[in-house]
């Protein structure tokens, strides 16, 4: 689909930025899990565990969504003129 479309100035930027969004997903989760582990170790009470547990659990699907968003961007799904 991408190859058939006439290229516009922002198209390459949109596509390559997709790689950044794909990378951001796992980086965010790794950072979050590391921080959660450190904070729970610092204060191992149930409140801290629940708070950080909720953060991690809820951000994992969001990070997966960011990776998918990056993938679609990389595939040129958001470029001008792309029809569904």
């Amino acid at each position, binding site marked *: 689909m991408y190859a058939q479309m006439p290229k516009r100035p922002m198209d390459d930027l949109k596509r390559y930025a997709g790689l950044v969004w794909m990378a951001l997903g796992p980086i965010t989760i790794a950072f979050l899990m590391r921080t959660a582990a450190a904070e729970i170790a610092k204060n191992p009470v149930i409140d801290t565990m629940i708070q950080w547990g909720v953060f991690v659990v809820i951000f994992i699907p969001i990070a997966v969504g960011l990776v998918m*968003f990056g993938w*679609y961007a990389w595939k040129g799904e*958001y470029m001008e003129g792309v029809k569904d």
Partner: protein
Amino acid sequence: MDQPANQTKNLRKVIWASSLGTLIEWYDFYIFGSLATVIAGQFFPKENPTAALLSTLATFAAGFIVRPFGALVFGRIGDMVGRKYTFLLTLVIMGGSTFAIGLVPGYATIGFAAPIIILVLRLLQGLALGGEYGGAATYVAEHAPAGRRGFYTSWIQTTATLGLFVSLGVILLTRQVLDSDPSVSISKFNDWGWRIPFLLSSVLVVISVYIRMKMSESPMFAELKAEGKTSKNPLKESFGHKTNLKMVLLALFGTTMGQGVVWYTGQFYAQSFLENVCRVDFAQSRTILIWSILFATPFFVVFGHWSDRIGRKWIMLIGMALAVVTYRPLFRMMERISDPTHMTEVNEPFALSEHVFDAPQPDGAITEVTRTHRFTNGTVVTGTYSYNAEDVIVPRGGKDGTVNKQLGPVPYWQIVGIIFIMILYVTMVYGPIAAFLVELFPTRIRYTSMSLPYHVGNGVFGGLTPFIATLLTTIHLKDPLVGLWYPIGVAALCFIIGALYVKEDVRPNAQTTDG
């Protein structure tokens, strides 16, 4: 009466019915949050770890997990059964839960049943809120003429802020009217008066349900239903097909995520910052917010209306960009304006009590004095301060000892102005967003598709702002503004994604976005 006049009258009714119900739902949701401390004292005693655990669950689960879940549950019903009956149902669930919270006996009376019932009711509130907004926005947008969706849906957008306004007003009023002696009144409020704002909700809900029941179904959805073209599986169509899923993801990462953090920073973190960092008096910090909201609310309609003319994308993105660039200077100004070290004291402070330690404390303190300081700008500060041998204040627990700060008129209105600016950003990002989301998705799966990114953006990214920002200040003690990096980072990322990928074709003349 001619047809256009009739249409306008009908549209006004639609907006009124939808907005009133949504406002009540926000009111219901906020009073729990605003009275969290009082509720915790009644239902979640800290000395009991299980009750404290339920309290944490009530706080976190209702806002972050249940809201998006409610968006899915009620979005699906709304796309299959209809908008009208779905947001009638969410209103009844929300109103019923709120009223019930006002009736539940405390922990001291019924023990563990109390926090468990409160947790369940709070979860129901979150669920209902997740279903309400998408329905109201969709319902109004599907009645609105093409090219005016931004203007008409902006009335729905005012309700979240007005709901906060009404909840703060009702709480402050109730705290003051229970007794002629203010301290007795507050004590009565903490004891039983806190139930009044919850019980009051039932009256509002009954009125709103009555008004909504008289409304007809959205014309676009009614047409779809008559033709037998409604979705059989809205969840699968919304999130299982690439065509729609990619727009859901764009809506989340390119608009609602940034909008959520700007909204919660301007209206919630600002208040928390005033109270916890600037140490401004409880009631005063709330009246500051009330004034700012009052002055800023009309701008939801201004920006919504404007978005019909010039497009929605850049109004929202400029709001985010302004937040990214100015949050730190604005919060620094608030801190400086309320800081007594930048004020001139009228005369010698009035000492209420003084205690000299037998020996110097480990932090060097030799005396502890409770004092009232009066400043030329009208500010009055009361606090218990520890002094060392050089007569310098020794901060304890990272705080200078101030326990109450009543700002004078000049700093008070300066801070109202600063929060007004932050809420103005909220109106820029939030005013046009309902119309933007509605136009992004087709009628048959609109309720489901727009509700999820809205509630993930607002419930998760936005709702976490006060927690993450406060958490950051506990990790990095030296910088009181460190918490702002969370909303700044999220809004900056959203701005970049939105600027790159969101298209500006709001299609103001399109009758429907199904095509």
